[in-house]
């Protein structure tokens, strides 16, 4: 890694005449909204030399994407550059005509969008879409030439059998393949600058790593400068030499990545560095193996307690009998294969594991691994095809009478992923949290109100939230409400299905902190479903790694992180962004 980056540094010094490739100074972007003008980007300045890579890091709404899309004049809606300058190779880009910008887009600045699923037109084959770019940018003169070039582009993008792939349509490509094609399109005219807007956040971690590695190789070969837009500080530091940290439309800190990680000076960056799970997990790993850690120690109290607690986990021995126990659980779905034929699809295949009282068991896996199906079966929202799901010794499938089901529901409660869908938009917060109490006939109206206040206090929200509606709250706040609702009946087990995955890092840290606090206060057991191993490191006592419906590895968190047995687990661990960051002197 170090050798590679020094190599790039040398390469960059050659062509430049002291002038940076891209120079953004005092950029101002504003949007017209119903409530007046909103300044989304205020006085942003950064610069990038040829061949360098730069990452703009920030939470959602920090203006990171807006700054990047302003460079190629692709601002959404009413967005407008209202001040400052953007110079590419000395040429001013602010205020140039649409035709001039179109000539620059593609040929000089390439763009890789965020969502590979919606950024390829489903009605045209891949070849057409690549050739369109080549012809539009004058890279190829004739269709024949374009086709030959298109094959080359896809090959370079790492798609095997490119000649055949040209005739295929986007739906025949996996997410990773689509993103490769998009990167290929973005780089097809060998632009000087490539803007990658969260290029891999929609992909599985292992795919993410391969794609980023490949992007890295390609841009280094071509000498292309890259701007990454990302919310993941670990990924940013690993993939870019320079960091620009944005907060509420302003740059709060910028400079060499390693230096910022090692010595964040702005309080916001300090918070961010402390809260990033990928970095925290890396830090814990380093401490264990007595490495000399160059990443700043956590400063925010928030994360310190989280890590301390995580480190003390091993002491919490698990002697009691399991509260949840899965024995050879299998779930099969019938899927229609056209006509009246159906085929059996095994989503979960003979899975066995235990959750001990007061501990957290994480189930980690990529999309389609069957981890959410397990959550649904434990919650008795899906039937079990074969095997047993035991909750405190009782087989869940055997619970049939309405009264017993109700009693079961009281003990096992879920928190879901999407904070925007988890609360009924027509119920205010008090009604939402009180619903379980009403359904189970707990207490009088007055007692229920008291309990709602108590629960809001437990999830650290002010009592005034009671009269609010979900759409007035942020994602993190909604997730707190979801936790409060789940806790209303004083359950033994919470099933957290990607409960923090959709949240910004700092908010995620807060919720994780809240969850660990609640666990130690109430002795809750968590079944923690996630795709993010870094988060697992912070909260889980034991881990089950799932792949295609089966558990490939199951052990304590420390065992999995220190000495993974299976190759798949090793791949997952290596794919945690930031894992490749050099530590030590």
């Amino acid at each position, binding site marked *: 890694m170090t050798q590679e980056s020094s190599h790039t540094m040398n390469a960059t010094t050659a062509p430049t005449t*002291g002038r*940076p490739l891209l120079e953004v100074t005092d950029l101002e972007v504003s949007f017209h*909204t*119903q409530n007046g003008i909103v300044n989304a980007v205020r006085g*942003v*300045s*950064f610069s990038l*030399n040829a061949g360098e890579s730069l990452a703009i890091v920030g939470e959602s709404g920090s203006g990171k994407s807006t700054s990047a899309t302003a460079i190629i004049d692709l601002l959404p*809606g*009413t967005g407008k550059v209202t001040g400052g300058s953007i110079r590419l190779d000395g040429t001013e880009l602010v205020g140039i005509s649409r035709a001039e910008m179109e000539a620059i887009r593609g040929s000089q600045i390439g763009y890789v969008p965020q969502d590979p699923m919606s950024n390829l037109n489903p009605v045209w084959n891949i070849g057409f879409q690549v050739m369109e770019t080549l012809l539009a940018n004058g890279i190829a003169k004739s269709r024949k030439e374009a086709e030959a070039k298109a094959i080359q582009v896809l090959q370079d993008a790492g798609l095997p059998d490119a000649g055949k792939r040209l005739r295929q349509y986007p739906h025949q490509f996996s997410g990773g393949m689509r993103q490769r094609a998009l990167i290929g399109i973005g780089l097809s005219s060998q632009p000087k600058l490539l803007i990658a807007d969260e290029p891999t956040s929609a992909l599985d971690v292992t795919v993410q790593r391969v794609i980023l590695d490949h992007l890295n190789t390609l841009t280094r070969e071509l000498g292309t400068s890259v701007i990454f837009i990302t919310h993941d500080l670990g990924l940013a530091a690993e993939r870019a030499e*320079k960091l620009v940290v944005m*907060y*509420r439309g302003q*740059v*709060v*800190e*910028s*400079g*060499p990545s390693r*230096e*910022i990680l090692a010595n964040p*000076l*702005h309080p*916001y960056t300090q*918070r961010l560095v402390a809260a990033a799970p990928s970095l925290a997990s890396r830090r814990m790993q380093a401490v264990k193996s007595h490495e000399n850690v160059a990443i700043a120690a956590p400063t925010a109290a928030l994360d310190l307690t989280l890590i301390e607690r995580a480190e003390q986990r091993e002491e919490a021995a698990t002697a009691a009998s399991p509260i949840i126990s899965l024995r050879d659980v299998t779930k099969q779905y019938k899927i229609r294969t056209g006509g009246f034929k159906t085929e059996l699809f095994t989503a979960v295949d003979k899975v066995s594991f235990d959750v001990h009282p007061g501990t957290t068991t994480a189930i980690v896996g990529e999309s389609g691994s069957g981890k959410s199906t397990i959550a649904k079966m434990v919650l*008795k929202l899906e039937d079990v095809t074969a095997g047993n799901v035991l909750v405190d010794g009782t087989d869940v499938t055997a619970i049939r009478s*309405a009264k017993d089901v109700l009693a079961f*529901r009281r003990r*096992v*409660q*879920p928190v*879901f*992923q*999407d904070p925007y*869908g*988890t*609360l009924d*938009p*027509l119920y*205010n917060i008090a009604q939402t949290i009180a*619903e*379980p109490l009403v*359904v*189970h006939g707990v207490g009088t109206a007055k007692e229920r109100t008291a309990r709602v206040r108590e629960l809001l206090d437990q999830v650290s*929200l*002010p009592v*005034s*939230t009671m*009269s*609010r*509606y979900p*759409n*007035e*709250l*942020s994602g*993190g*706040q909604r997730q707190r409400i*979801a936790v409060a609702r789940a806790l209303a009946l004083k359950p033994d087990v919470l099933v957290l299905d990607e409960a923090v995955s959709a949240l910004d890092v700092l*908010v995620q840290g*807060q919720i994780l902190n809240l969850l660990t606090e609640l666990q130690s206060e109430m002795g809750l057991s968590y079944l923690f479903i996630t795709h993010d191993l870094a988060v697992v490191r912070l909260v889980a006592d034991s881990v089950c790694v799932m792949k295609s419906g089966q558990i490939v590895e199951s052990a304590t968190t420390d065992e999995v992180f220190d000495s993974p047995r299976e190759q798949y687990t090793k791949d997952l661990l290596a794919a945690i962004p930031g894992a490749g960051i050099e530590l030590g002197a």
Partner: protein
Amino acid sequence: MPNNDSRSPEHYVAPLDETPLLVIDKVDENAKPSNLWLDAWRSLRHSPIFWISSSMILFILFVGLFPFLFTNEPPNNKCDLDNSNGGPEAGHPFGFTKLGCDVFARVVYGAQPSLTVGITATLLVVIVGVILGALAGFYGGFFDTIISRVGDMFFAIPVVLGAIVLMQTLSGTRNALTVALILSIFAWPQVARITRGAVLSAKNSDYVTASIALGVTRFRVLMRHVLPNSLAPVIVVATVSLGTFIVAEATLSYLGVGLPSSVMSWGNDISQAQSSIRTAPQTLLYPAGALSLTVLSFLMLGDVVRDALDPKARAR
């Protein structure tokens, strides 16, 4: 302002007083409370079209309920053939019909049957459509197939055509209620379809799954979470179709298969006016104008309500 010469990758830090930190994820306790209906109301409140259309509707409803406040002319008693097709004169601002009846009085009294048909048919359609659509969407499977296919069969028949055929057989018992009933027989599938779609999307929300996991029964989930979240599009369709039912009633009456000619309704008046359109245009103009204004009011209301209930359509 940041003034870093980042030609050399120097470590730049913004001054803290220019980039103050906020408490992470703080609840804004001063914000105005809002939800779908409150937001819709705020948007409606500023819409002139909403105020115009709703005050017109209120006025028409008032006329329909208390016609005697607007004219002291008992409408059918005082028809005098001497006044046949007469123009406006003092006390009779709209002139007279062929039979010498006061047009103004007839228009005022004609509001009631038209509105009765419109409102009753809309209520019936909404009740039947919402119940069937919600059951089909929520329980799915066999139930859904039956309801959807039966709905499709009715949907294929044009409302007016179906109503003409059925009304023919009811020659003895034609009144506002039977007209409304017949119209709703052919109009319910539209509401059922819309409800079904809205229910389908609402039932897959996490809050529904969360409620089931809380132990709420399926029926209660449907009533308390799914249905309330599916009603917005139904309200829009209901407002618009109220207007179209009034038109349908007029059409049927014009064709002689709607309300009996003894009932004063705009449709009947238009029908009777056709023989004297050239000599006495007022006999057609006023009932037709009243009909158009009423329908227009409901259509406009439906339009603004749709925009208010759809956050995407609302001006940003």
